[in-house]
C-alpha cells in the first residue's frame, strides 16, 4: 500500500469514527424505544412496537458488525436464533429469551460510552496536535501578558516557548499517527465482543443446523431408496418376468411351431436389452460408473460432453475427493446443468471446479435469460439440501435477462494425489 493510500485510510477512519459516534446516539434512541415499547405491552400496542424496535436494533447492530468485520479483517456472525412463527406474544417471548437481544442492548450502552470515548480520543489527539502545531502562529496574536499556564509540559511566556508547543504538537501528531488505528481497532474489538455470537450461542446454532441437515439428509436418502425400489420394481423386475414367460412359451412351442418359437426368442432378447438399459439408468442415478472410474474431473467432463449445450469445462483438482463428497459434488453440478438445459434458454454454459483453502468451489454459469430463484425452484433447493449435508453452500446470482451464475462450495480435503491418468481432452 502506498503512503498516500494509508493516509487517506487514516483520514477515512477519522471521518467514520465521528459518524459512528454521532450514530451511537441513535442507538440510545432505539434503547429508549425498546424501553417504552416494553412499558406499553399491557396495552397491546407495545408488542408490535417492541418487535419493530428490536428489528431496527438488529439492523443497527448489523451495520456495526460489518464495520467491525472490515476493521478487524474477520467475519462477525449474527448470533440470533431463527424467528419462530406464531402470534405476537410467542414472537416477543422468543426475542426476549434470546440472549443476543440483551447483548445488543448492553452493546448500545457500551458503544455510546466506552466506544465513543475510544473513537473521540482518536479524533481528539489529532485536534490537539493540529492546535499545537498552529500555536506559534497564534501566539503573537494573543494579548501581551496573557498567561495560558502550562500547555503540556511547557509554560508559554514568549515566542520561543510557543515554538516548543509546536514541537509538542508534532509529538502528539506522531502518537496519533501511531495510536489511531489501534484505538479504532479496540473499538471494533469491543463491538465484536458483544455482537458476535458467544461460544455457547455458536454451538447451539451449530447443533440446530446439524439436526436440520441431518433430518433433511435422512429424508432425501429415504426418498432416493424408494425411487430406486420403484424403478427396479416397475422396470427390471417386470422385464425379467416377461422374459421368463417368453422363454417358457418358447419351450412349449419349440417342437411344434419353430417360427413362433423364433419370434418369442427374439422378443426375449429384446426384453433383456430393455432390462439392461433400465438397469443402466438406475445405476447412473445411484453412482455414475464414470464417476467411479475417473473421479469428479472425468465425470464432469463426460457430463459436459453429453450435454446438448456447448459446455466449457475448467477443472483444477490436484487429487481425488472423498467418495461421498465427490458424489454430492457430481450430482450438484449435474442437476445445475440440468436446470440450465431445462429452464435457462441458454446457448452455452460453462463449469469451473477448483479446490483451494480446504474448499471445493464449483461454479456453473450460462448465458440464458436469468431470473432463477432458489426459493421457488425445487431443483435449486434440492441441490442446496444435498450440499448442506456436507456444510456446503449454494449461491445464485441470476438477474432478469441473465447471465445466471450458480456458485457452490463444499468444505473438504483432497484425499490422495491423482493415480489414474486423465486425458487432456475435455
Amino acid at each position, binding site marked *: 500500500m502506498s503512503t498516500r493510500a494509508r493516509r487517506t485510510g487514516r483520514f477515512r477512519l477519522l471521518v467514520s469514527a465521528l459518524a459512528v459516534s454521532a450514530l451511537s446516539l441513535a442507538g440510545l434512541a432505539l434503547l429508549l424505544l425498546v424501553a417504552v415499547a416494553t412499558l406499553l405491552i399491557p396495552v397491546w400496542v407495545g408488542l408490535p412496537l417492541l418487535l419493530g424496535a428490536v428489528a431496527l436494533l438488529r439492523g443497527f447492530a448489523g451495520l456495526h458488525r460489518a464495520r467491525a468485520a472490515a476493521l478487524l479483517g474477520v467475519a462477525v456472525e449474527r448470533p440470533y436464533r431463527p424467528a419462530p412463527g406464531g402470534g405476537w406474544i410467542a414472537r416477543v417471548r422468543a426475542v426476549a429469551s434470546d440472549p443476543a437481544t440483551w447483548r445488543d442492548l448492553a452493546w448500545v450502552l457500551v458503544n455510546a460510552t466506552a466506544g465513543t470515548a475510544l473513537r473521540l480520543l482518536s479524533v481528539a489527539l489529532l485536534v490537539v496536535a493540529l492546535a499545537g502545531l498552529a500555536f506559534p502562529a497564534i501566539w503573537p496574536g494573543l494579548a501581551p501578558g496573557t498567561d495560558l499556564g502550562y500547555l503540556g509540559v511547557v509554560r508559554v511566556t514568549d515566542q520561543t516557548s510557543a515554538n516548543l508547543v509546536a514541537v509538542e504538537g508534532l509529538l502528539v501528531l506522531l502518537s496519533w499517527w501511531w495510536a489511531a488505528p489501534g484505538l479504532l481497532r479496540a473499538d471494533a474489538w469491543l463491538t465484536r465482543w458483544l455482537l458476535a455470537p458467544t461460544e455457547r450461542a455458536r454451538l447451539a446454532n451449530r447443533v440446530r443446523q446439524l439436526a436440520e441437515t441431518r433430518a433433511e439428509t435422512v429424508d432425501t436418502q429415504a426418498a432416493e431408496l424408494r425411487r430406486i425400489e420403484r424403478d427396479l420394481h416397475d422396470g427390471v423386475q417386470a422385464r425379467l418376468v416377461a422374459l421368463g414367460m417368453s422363454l417358457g412359451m418358447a419351450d412349449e412351442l419349440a417342437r411344434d411351431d419353430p417360427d413362433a418359437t423364433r419370434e418369442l426368442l427374439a422378443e426375449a*432378447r429384446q426384453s*433383456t*436389452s430393455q432390462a*439392461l438399459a433400465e438397469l*443402466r439408468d438406475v*445405476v*447412473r442415478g445411484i453412482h455414475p*460408473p*464414470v464417476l*467411479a*472410474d*475417473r473421479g469428479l474431473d*472425468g465425470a464432469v*467432463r*463426460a457430463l459436459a*460432453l*453429453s*450435454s*446438448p449445450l456447448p459446455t466449457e469445462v475448467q477443472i483444477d483438482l490436484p487429487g481425488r475427493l472423498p467418495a461421498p463428497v465427490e458424489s454430492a459434488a457430481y450430482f450438484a453440478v449435474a442437476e445445475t446443468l440440468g436446470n440450465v438445459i431445462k429452464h435457462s434458454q441458454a446457448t452455452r454454459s460453462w463449469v469451473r471446479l477448483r479446490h483451494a483453502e480446504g474448499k471445493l468451489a464449483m461454479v456453473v454459469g450460462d448465458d440464458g435469460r436469468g431470473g432463477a430463484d432458489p426459493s421457488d425452484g425445487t431443483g435449486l433447493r434440492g441441490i442446496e439440501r444435498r450440499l448442506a449435508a456436507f456444510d456446503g453452500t449454494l449461491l445464485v446470482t441470476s438477474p432478469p435477462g441473465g447471465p445466471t451464475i450458480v456458485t457452490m462450495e463444499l468444505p473438504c480435503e483432497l484425499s490422495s494425489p491423482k493415480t*489414474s*491418468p486423465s*486425458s487432456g*481432452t475435455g
Partner: protein
Amino acid sequence: MRVVIAEDLALLRDGLIRLLTAHDFEVVEAVDNGPSLLRALTTHRPDVAVVDVRLPPTFTDEGLQAAIQARTMVPGLPVLVLSQYVEPLYARELLSDRNGGVGYLLKDRVSNIGQFLDAVRRVGAGGTAMDPEVISQLLARHASNEPLSQLTPREREVLGLMAEGRSNAAIAGRLFITEKAVSKHTNNIFGKLGLPPSEDDNRRVLAVLAYLNA
C-alpha cells in the same frame, strides 16, 4: 482371425470364447485383468481384441487404459471395447489417435450374434464399430448446431449409421435403399458439414466421428 479376450467374469469370458470359436475365430489368449491384457496384446499382436472396460485390479476403466496404451505401442492394433454402459468421453479417447480399428459397444449387443460378429470383423479389418447409443448422444449434443440442423431426416439417419461405422452397402441394406442412393446422401452430408469427400469407407467414418466429437 486371432483374438485376445479380456473379461473378468468367468461366465461371460467363457461365453465369448465359445461364441468366437464357433465362428472360426482363434482365441489365442483370454485374460481377466488389466496388466495381463497389456502383456497379451503386445506379445500376441492379435488381429482383434475384445476387451471389457472394467477389469481388476482397480475395477475402474482398466481395460480401456490398457487398450489405449497398447495402441500407442502397436499403432492401429484393433480393439473392440465392451462395457455395461457407454460414455462418449471414452469413445473420444479411443478414437483420438485417428488410426481406426476401434470399436466401442454395449455388452448386451453381444446377444445379437450376427451384428456382434460383424462388428468384430469390421474392427479387425481396421474399421470402426460405435454403439448406436454413443452416436445418439453425440448427435443430441449437436442437435441445435447450424450445419447438422440443415440435414434432412434421412440424411441424419445415414449420418448416424455411418458414424456407427457401417459401410455404404450395409447402410443400403439397413434402410432398404440402393447403394447409389446412400452415396448420394453421404455426398450431401459431407457437403453440408464441409468435410473433405473420400471414397474410402473407414476414412469417411473417422471424419464423421471427428466432426461429432469436436
